[in-house]
């Protein structure tokens, strides 16, 4: 699990009503330190909220800044950014699926033991992950805390040769992902269900990750700019994580399971085939399946990357290089689909481009209350197990959610 989260002792003793995650992360006060800083520092600082999904923090901040100042970007820039996102989703999901979640499916308490037991599958997972990382490295200049993306475009663009090599690597990764997908399909996930609201971006014509409105399976459909009017961000005393809940509604869920439930009709052919092969019926309200839907998204993201790379192979990418723009006063709100769900940035700039106000709402802050509600229910199912076993099951359940505490407490 990314970041530090523990359990309240009461949960372990089986006090279901107060099922609550204890977040032990120290506070870095990222929004606070942004105030008064020049906008150019913002994407550099915020991507350091998370070492696993820096791409999406960097990108969402850049999009919010562009909206605040009215900066237009080229189609090539947009394509390269989407590639960065797919790369990010591929390598983040591959890590979580294989190196963090598989141990739970197998009831093993150490991921290194999984590596020993499944050497072939480990190699497959690494190969897939490396494709995602290579996309980010080639386009972003570095995997962790990428360098090239900035307000208005890119400092540097990949060469045609680099794009060609990515395509070769992607073709192999796609084959490998189908094989690893078949491996994951054989696992039986625990039975657990709770009907819920799934929230993610919806662009009306694609499996949205870079842009779109905020939509749910329960009739919510609002522009990203209206997010803060419709969702409550609240801090409870003594808590370092701020939870997000929908106004007048209930807790809700984000991430791979939400996206596949809401937007499955826009999956790529191979991802769709894989989804069909699983024989799950949608809507699917079993949060354990979040793990397998990450596998669906890995296949989808590799196919999507290959399509875009194919287009870029024959294009002159110099159009993505940043052009001059004017620094302006304004408020910018933006959202993208991070691996773990919708990530929102709200940035308020003064006329010299210094930050007046900033708000960052992460996927885990949105799904935490949902997770706790599920834990309270799930505890009933596992109450009779011995304490050690119960703890292991609970850890597995929490991990299926793939929370990122570094993101949630920033």
């Amino acid at each position, binding site marked *: 699990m990314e970041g530090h989260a523990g359990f309240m002792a009461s949960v372990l003793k089986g006090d279901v009503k107060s099922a609550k995650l204890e977040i032990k992360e*120290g506070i870095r*006060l990222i*929004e606070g330190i942004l105030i008064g800083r020049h906008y150019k520092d913002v994407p550099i600082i915020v991507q350091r909220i998370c070492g696993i999904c820096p791409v999406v923090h960097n990108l969402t901040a850049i999009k919010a800044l562009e909206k605040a100042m009215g900066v237009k970007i080229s189609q090539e820039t947009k394509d390269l950014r989407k590639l960065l996102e797919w790369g990010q989703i591929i390598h983040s999901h591959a890590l979580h699926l294989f190196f963090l979640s598989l141990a739970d499916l197998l009831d093993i308490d*150490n991921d290194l033991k999984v590596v020993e037991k499944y050497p072939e599958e480990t190699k497959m997972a690494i190969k897939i992950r490396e494709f995602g990382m290579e996309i980010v490295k080639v386009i*972003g200049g*570095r995997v*962790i*805390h990428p*360098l090239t993306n900035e307000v208005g475009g890119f400092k*540097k663009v990949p060469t045609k040769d680099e794009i060609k090599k990515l395509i070769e690597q992607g073709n192999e990764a796609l084959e490998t992902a189908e094989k690893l997908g078949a491996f994951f399909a054989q696992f039986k996930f625990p039975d657990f269900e709770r009907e819920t609201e799934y929230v993610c971006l919806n662009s009306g014509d694609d499996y949205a990750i870079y842009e779109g409105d905020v939509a749910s399976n329960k009739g919510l459909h609002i522009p990203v700019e209206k997010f803060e009017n419709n969702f409550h961000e609240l801090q409870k005393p003594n808590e370092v994580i701020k939870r997000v809940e929908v106004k007048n509604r209930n807790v809700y869920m984000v991430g791979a399971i939400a996206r596949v439930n809401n937007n499955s009709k826009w999956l790529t052919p191979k991802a769709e085939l894989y989804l069909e092969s699983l024989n799950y019926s949608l809507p699917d309200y079993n949060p354990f399946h979040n793990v397998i839907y990450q596998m669906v998204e890995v296949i989808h993201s590799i196919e999507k990357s290959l399509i875009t790379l194919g287009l870029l192979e024959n294009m002159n990418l110099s159009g993505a290089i940043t052009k001059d723009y004017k620094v302006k006063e304004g408020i910018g709100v933006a959202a993208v689909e991070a691996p773990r769900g919708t990530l929102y940035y709200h940035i308020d700039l003064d006329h010299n481009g210094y930050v007046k106000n900033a708000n960052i709402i992460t996927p885990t802050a949105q799904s935490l209350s949902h997770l706790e509600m599920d834990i309270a229910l799930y505890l009933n199912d596992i109450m009779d197990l011995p304490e050690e076993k119960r703890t292991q099951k609970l850890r597995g359940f929490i991990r299926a959610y793939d929370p990122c505490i570094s993101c949630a407490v920033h």
Partner: protein
Amino acid sequence: MENKNQNEDPKEEKVSIASEPIKAEAKPKIAIVALTSCEGCQFALLDLGEKFLELVEKVEMIDWGMIEDEEDPGVDLDIAIVEGTPITEENVETLKKLRKRSKLLVVLGNCAAMGGIPEIKNYHEGKNTIKHVYRYIQGIENTEIKEVDNFVKVDFVFPGCPITAEEFLKYFPDLLEGRIPDRTDQPVCVECKAKGNRCLLLDNKPCFGPMIQGGCDAVCPTSKMMCQGCRGLRPKGNVKAMRATLKKMMTDEEFENVTEIFGLRDDISERESKM
């Protein structure tokens, strides 16, 4: 020995089998521990893929919270690897306990070595920064940011935000043998030139490369991003000359601002006060 075993009851034999992992015990005992951080430096290690797994085989991993749930048995360590900034009391306690049980304590990355981005608050509103973020501030630990070496002795630093994983592979074998590696005092510029990059300074674009410790393969300037000094001042880094060069490219205020991002500002002040 063999004869003696034969004469004893099977229980005794079991004991000798149980102590067989002497082989495994001969491997150096390692723990990788994160304080408050983005965990990117640990991911930089994991991202080495098979190369990292090969390295893991050479050690006995006693604790690595990111990928295992097993309780840390609390045994003595050959090397403790620490990532992040000590922000909570629990962080500080973890750090001190680690130091006590480890022969060597090495740190990973800019947060542990230089304070990282959380240190930005020290240069501005300090503890009051919290007011922009939280409504209920009572009971939330909100300290001044201090680097790891303010709390415990640090034997070696893998600098950078994030660390350069290849550099970890280069120096870690020395540490496994109990030796503190020698680091050459070399600016970022050496690797930058070797890569055939055009110097940003020549185009009147700011870059901290000349005063900053190399070893990062000049990853930032290679992407046309200025070096912002995440790896820290090199021992002979000439701050005065750097400031003079940058005068025509950025104001003093801009210079100070950039040095704040990776906790370099306090180190520069310290260096300048000694000049």
